[in-house]
Structures are given as C-alpha cells and as structure tokens.
C-alpha cells in the first residue's frame, strides 16, 4: 500500500499539469477541466494495478481523461449555441498580458474537436501519429490528415497563408 501510494504520487506530480492541459483543451473550460482531472486521478488510483508499464502512464491517463470527458458530456449534454455567440475561451491569459499567445489560444480553441484533439495530444503529450491513432481509435493516416489540416487552418489564421493557397504553388 505505501509503495502503491508512493508510485501514484510520483505519477501525480509528474503528469498532473499535462493531464490538466489535455482536459482543458478537450472541454475548453477551467472548472470542468479541474473536475475531469480529479475524476481521472480517482479512477487511476482505483485501477492502478491495471497500469503494468509506468512508461505508458501518460497515454493511460489521457485515455481516462478522454473517457471521463465523454461520460460527462453525455451526462450534461451541453446545448448547441450559434457560432456567432461563442465567447472567448478563458485560458487564464488576458489579451493585454500576452496578446499573441492569447490569440493563438483562441485559434486553437476554435478548431473543431476532431482537429484540435490530435494536435493537443501531439503538442502536450508528445505522442507520435501512431500513438495518437491508438488513443483516438482511428487509423494513422486519418491522424496525419487531421494534424495536417489542423496546422493548415492555424497557419492560415496566424500568418494568413496556407499550404494550398500560399505555398504549394510557390
């Protein structure tokens, strides 16, 4: 038991920030992300014996976050709102504090979830396309396509250029 607690604490301290970030970019809400992380670690603690390889801990925790998010989404069924009414996402950074970072965050938040999620897994988790395909349950080519489209969209809004329009011909 003490050994289990010790191993769990190591996992908690090492990964909680990334687990929180992934949860935040899934639901785009700080309070919900906090709940998600707490539920995730609670489930992780209860099922800690099922984690055989601690090198796989991050992917394991991210998978729990993903399932927990889906569970909460089913439970609360957020109402659809008109796109024009979507408010800015509170990321903890104000526009005056770091306007460029704030804008990039809003652009990332505006990506559809199918493009945002693999990008977040790659940027935060450091996962390869193959690992992301396992976490998301889609094939690797789909992941590569979604990553391509995610960056293409972001480059368009950040620099005004895309591969198709600006660079593929240049």
């Amino acid at each position, binding site marked *: 038991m003490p050994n289990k607690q010790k191993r769990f604490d190591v996992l908690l301290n090492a990964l909680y920030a990334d687990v929180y970030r992934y949860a935040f970019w899934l639901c785009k809400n700080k309070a919900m992300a*906090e709940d998600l992380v*707490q539920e995730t670690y609670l489930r992780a603690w209860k099922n800690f014996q099922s984690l055989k390889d601690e090198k796989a801990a991050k992917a394991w925790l991210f998978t729990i976050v993903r399932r927990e998010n889906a569970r909460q989404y089913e439970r609360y069924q957020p109402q659809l709102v008109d796109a024009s009414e979507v408010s800015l996402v509170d990321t*903890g950074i104000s526009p005056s504090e770091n306007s460029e970072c704030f804008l990039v965050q809003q652009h990332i938040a505006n990506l559809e979830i199918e493009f945002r999620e693999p990008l*977040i897994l790659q*940027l935060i988790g450091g996962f390869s396309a193959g690992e992301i395909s396992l976490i998301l349950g889609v094939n690797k080519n789909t992941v590569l396509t979604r990553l*391509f489209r995610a960056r293409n969209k972001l480059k368009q809004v*950040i620099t005004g250029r895309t591969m198709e329009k600006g660079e593929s011909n240049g």
Partner: protein
Amino acid sequence: MDDLEFRRRAYAEPDCQSESFLQFKNKSAENTRFVDELLQMDEKLKQAVCVQPPDNLVEKIKLKQAFSDHRSYREHWRFVSFAASLLLAIVVTLYYLPLDSTGHERKLQEGLLQHIYSELDHLNDRQNRSLSQVNRLLAEFGGSMNRLVAEVSYLGSCEIHNKPGVHMVVKGDRGPVTIMLLRGVTVNSQKSISDQRFRGLIVPTGSGSMAIIGEKGEPLQVIKSELLEQIHWI
C-alpha cells in the same frame, strides 16, 4: 517521397525524424525554411497550449483520493460487520435452538425425577384408588380413563414443571410406577429418563405429555401402550 507528400508530412509532423523526410528537408534551402517556419509556429502553439493548472490541484486530487479511500474503508468494514453479524446470528440460531430444546427436555427430565425423590413416600402409599376417583381428578384436566391399567396406590394433583398435573402411582411388575399427566408441557417425541434408580419415558399426548417412571427393568412400554389406549383427552 514527393514534394506534396513532404509538405503534407511537414504540416502533420514538423519534427518528423524519418530518414526520407529529413533527406527531403535538406534537399533545398526552401524545404528547410518551410519546415523551420512550421517548427517556429509549433513553438508558439506549444507555448499557447501550456495553460497553467490551478495552484492547489494536486492537494485537491490527494484529498479526493483520501475521501475515496476512507469511504471504501468504511464500506468495506460496514460489509464485514454485516457479514459478521449475519454469521453470528446463524451460529446462535443453529447452536442455541437445539440447545434450548435439549435444555428444556433436560430440565423436564430433572424436574420429574426431583419430584419423585421429593415425594418418595407416595411410592409406598396404599390408597387403592377407584376408576371413578381417578376420572374425577382427570376430568379437571380434561381427560378420562376407560379402565384402570393397574392398581392405583396414590392419586393426587401437583405442580410439575410449573404446570398443574396429575400424579399417580400404580403397581408395576418391579415395584411402584409413577405416572404423571402433564397438560401444557410438550415434547416433540418420546424421550427417555434414567438415573441410578429409575427409568422412565416421556410421551407426547394431545396438548401435553405423559411421564411413566418405574424401577429399572420395569416393562414401561406395556404400561405406556395401555395408558395411551385407556386415557382420552378432550
């Protein structure tokens, strides 16, 4: 890998380390610049996605874990307590029910023998009671006898095992035989009584029981059969 594939791959994985990708990247300055621009954008993206977690998140997680453990611990012990109580109840039921039954019968046996020993004089009485005298007493207890099964040397009513009953002594083959008719004192089946001097039977009858106790060697079964045949209860 062609140019289009290279560019698509650069967008999907700017820091791809595959040999074919790196070869294509280093093939021209334009390709290198193309990937470097994407890597620069990735730095901005990485900075942007690194939102700050709440300060006390670790403490909250640990607290939730502690609460969960405490609840699990409580639920575990609640279950164990319930199981233990159930087990105890089963053991008590299984153990004490037969013991109570055995205890009741043992007390009855002891009570009957004590009664005989406390009134040993009655074994030597020569009252020679008639059938009608016997029936008058039996009638008070809701019984009647067709005929006497043996000479009745003593007849009386007394309290046996805290219940009023008929106490008779009849003449047997080996000496006096005590017959006690007990209303309201029941036994589930025929029981035996014995000590160093007496042997006896307790037989269930209607709403009570009948005890027949004589000296060792007395043919009690014969007396029992005759009594059961001759005595009727309302």
